[in-house]
């Protein structure tokens, strides 16, 4: 394959982000279903965990596009 492998790396990072955020979101929704009155606390923690997972995936995207 000619050319750089950067875009392939970026696509793989997107898979990682998708799996990770999907897991976090799924567990959060399950937790809300079990205990609806804790919804705001669960939501806050879900957002924080989502941002951290996305941060790691974006590391990979930045490195992939730089190379």
């Amino acid at each position, binding site marked *: 394959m000619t050319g750089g492998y950067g875009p392939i790396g970026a696509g793989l990072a997107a898979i990682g982000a998708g799996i990770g955020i999907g897991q976090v979101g799924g567990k959060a929704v399950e937790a809300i279903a079990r205990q609806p009155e804790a919804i705001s606390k669960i939501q*806050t923690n879900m*957002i*924080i965990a989502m*941002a*951290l997972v*996305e*941060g*790691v995936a*974006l*590391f990979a*995207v*930045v490195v992939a596009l730089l190379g």
Partner: protein
Amino acid sequence: MYKSPNLKSKLFKLSLIYAFFLMIGSFPLSGFSQESKPAASEKRYDPKDDIMEHIADKHEWHLIGTSYIPLPVILYTDKGIELFSSGNLQPAGTLYKGRHYTYKLVGNKIEAVDDAGKLDEAANKKIWDFSITSNVASMWLAMAVLLVLFLSVSSTYKKRVGKAPKGLQSFMEPLVVFIRDDVARPNIGVKYVRFMPLLLTIFFFILFNNLAGIIPVFPAGYNLTGNIAVTFTLAIIIFLVVNVNGNKNYWKHIFLPDVPFWILPIMWIVEISGIFSKPLALMIRLFANMTAGHIVVLSLISLIFIFNTLWVSPVSVAFVVFIDAIEILVAFLQAYIFTILSALFIGMAVEEHHQEVI
């Protein structure tokens, strides 16, 4: 029989919101104005240059079409300071004879060249570029707007002590109270008052600049938080605040955690790299999220130019409206995430020792 529209119905309100977003998406990104292709050349349109031109920093402030505001160029060379307007370097490739060297605009960088136009390597290394670029000018604009906004709100608070908030106050108060009660106090604990100004500044600065990156018309439409130097500076501020305010407990956790002695060397590597990697993650997260959003929007618009037909525009504009709505959410989210993670790190640095319960 004519039934007048129900102005209170949900459908009407939804249509208003949809029309508003549609209006935002229909502003043409004027950097793409191209003259009609000459019949002979079949060169494929490469969107990369146009996209990079909109995201990167430049020495002039772009208005509409090809008009721009030339910004001052300030260079610190080894022979002295140079100060001239960047209009002297336009159109691209013009040589400008400054007081000490001759300059040319290569891409977005100013390079010193000799009189024939060739790059002067030795002189380039000694030139430091302190110009007022478009990012700097737009950052000053953002700072001015934020100062005006918050100074007016705070003076209103002083005048209306004890009375209910009115006007702009009632818009700012929920946000400020949200930062205080849901971000600062749970994470930092009792000492949160000292850090409130920092957290509020960071939140509103990032939020304002993120939102301004989505509005395409002058004077908004600049990509400030997608500039890694800006996010680097914000991360450095957090790094300094966390480590300067770290108490004995914080440093004890880093250098002498409660683990068996033979794990200590590994813990040192992990913890010390953690000191640097946490602000680094803050920097990259904000930069990559904002830049990626802008690149997606610009790529969807340049679809029209790649297919080179007008009939792609409804599809393209619909996509862009959708992505712009997501971008607004991401703007708020990234400002909130930066703030809450900073509060978390500060909280870890100032927390008192609590006895471990076995």
